[in-house]
């Protein structure tokens, strides 16, 4: 049965092992950052950053630099531009996001065209836009791991002011939270998360990992820490299943050509989202009230 589901050699394959590790790291980062992205209503800003990451990634490919550097660097510059134009006020947020998105897409079009001229193939374009986790070498892993740790620690450090600002900016300001500073710090972490995700499933599809698992998690849990864990687990599951299916797909048609892993990851995210929504809907229909308690089930916590 296991042999039927998992093709032989899956876990002994070095490329697959690297992909599994890389996928787990970026899924956890996307899950943690994505929870706050959804809570802050910045999904569109997150998507715009994927376009900026595309420009960064294609620029890096054109200049023969590290794709990770291009994706993350482009995202951070884009986040800075969006903040400068006005990402703080809700009214200005869409305008800033739209302006940056348009400019970045134009740059991407230019860079990708130049790459096509340079290489006479569309392989790089496909890789930048839609990812190719199987082509990431093990030498990239330490950089990805380091950047992942930096982003995770950064989010942990600002999590409470960030949550306060997400629930009620007015209340947070009255408590002395520097909303602008926290907002900029978060945008930089969001840009880094998008860059990391772009390495795994491509810049265009990185929104799927950033928004899908967190949006699913937020439907069914009532604590932030639980939401963060569930979003990460759902993200890792989607990525790992995507890798397994993509590996298996090499044997499906007998042609020796597999289907893209990014497709499977995004499909898994969608299936999870639909399944979790069905569970949440059934729960709502049952309308089970939690009993009144005076005893505390848990005395300490991260949030």
């Amino acid at each position, binding site marked *: 049965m296991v042999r039927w589901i998992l093709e032989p050699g899956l876990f002994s394959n070095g490329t697959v092992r690297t992909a599994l590790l890389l996928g787990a790291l970026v899924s956890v980062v996307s899950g943690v950052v994505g*929870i706050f992205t*959804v*809570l802050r209503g910045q999904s569109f800003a997150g998507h715009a950053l994927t376009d900026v990451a595309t420009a960064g990634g294609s620029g890096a490919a054109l200049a023969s630099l590290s794709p990770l550097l291009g994706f993350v660097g482009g995202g951070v510059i884009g986040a800075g531009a969006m903040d400068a134009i006005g990402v703080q006020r809700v009214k200005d947020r869409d305008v800033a996001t739209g302006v940056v998105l348009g400019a970045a897409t134009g740059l991407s079009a230019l860079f990708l065209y130049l790459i096509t001229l340079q290489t006479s193939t569309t392989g790089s374009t496909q890789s930048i836009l839609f990812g190719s986790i199987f082509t990431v070498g093990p030498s990239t892993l330490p950089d990805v791991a380091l950047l992942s740790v930096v982003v995770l*620690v950064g989010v*942990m*450090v*600002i999590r*409470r*002011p960030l*949550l*306060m600002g*997400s*629930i*009620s900016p*007015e*209340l*947070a*300001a*009255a*408590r*002395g*939270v520097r909303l602008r500073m926290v907002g900029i710090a978060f945008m930089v972490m969001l840009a880094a998360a998008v860059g990391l995700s772009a390495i795994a499933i491509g810049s265009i599809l990185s929104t799927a990992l950033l928004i899908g698992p967190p949006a699913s*998690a*937020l*439907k069914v*849990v*009532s*604590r*932030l820490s*639980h*939401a963060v864990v569930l979003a990460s687990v759902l993200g890792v599951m989607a990525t790992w299943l995507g890798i397994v299916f993509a590996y298996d797909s090499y044997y499906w048609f007998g042609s020796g050509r597999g289907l893209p892993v990014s497709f499977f990851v995004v499909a898994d995210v969608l299936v999870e989202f639909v399944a979790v929504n069905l569970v949440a809907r059934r729960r709502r229909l049952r309308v089970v009230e*939690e009993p*009144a*308690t*005076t005893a*505390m*089930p848990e*005395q*300490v*916590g*991260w*949030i």
Partner: protein
Amino acid sequence: MVGIDLLEVVDVDVALSGRMVLRDVNFRIDHGEFTGLIGSNGAGKTTLLRVLLGLQDVVRGRVLVHGEPMTRSNSSVGYVPQKVLFESDVPVRVRDFVALGIDGNRYGLARRSRHTYELVDEMLESVEAAAFANRRISSLSGGEQQRVLIAHALVSKPELLLLDEPLANLDPGSAQEIIQLLHSVVTNQHVAILLSAHEMNPLLPVMDRVVYVANGRVASGTTEEVVQPEVLSALYGHHVDVLRVHGRVLVVAGGDERGDSLVADHPAVVLE
């Protein structure tokens, strides 16, 4: 601190977008006083509260807490905003939201301590919200959410609590419960309260003082001192009648200085 008021507002002028919205604002609040900040919608109550929180700059004047200039995020001052829209997917339990009143402005990796949760539970008990401590905050009714917001503001042990229209959108029964709750906070915890409202009648039994805002200016004192035709007429800039019916106060626009009757011109005009 004997002889120094908890809060003192001296000669404050406030402008928004270049337009003067409050002029010559003067009033004080002492420890353990219940003060109503009364005025119609758009009178400048929220702006005045933002000044007291240090979130709005003044053109002129001073705001003093314990005789010292007010600073932003002063721990002596707690705040309940006019409205907090809790989205249905906000993954925060009541207990965790109240705890943010203690550590919501703190950065770092430290976990929340047992002591913090003890303070939170104590505060939830005091506002009679312990029964829903473990529920998701967005699942509460308006009255329940108001109790939780009050607990959130009180858990850091402020000496002055500012509340912006906490009775708006509540049914009369829930509004009365919140007023009684706040009265018990003043009595039992000796916290001073400044509560903004456009309707003063529900507050009459518990108010020690009133700060009345109209026409960009302010009158303050006891209810008997302020809610008088002469005082309010001077504030509004035209004649105003104060009617007392069955223990309720109605402030009604009367004839202006030109001899025209505002009531006749605008039969529906009832300022209070």
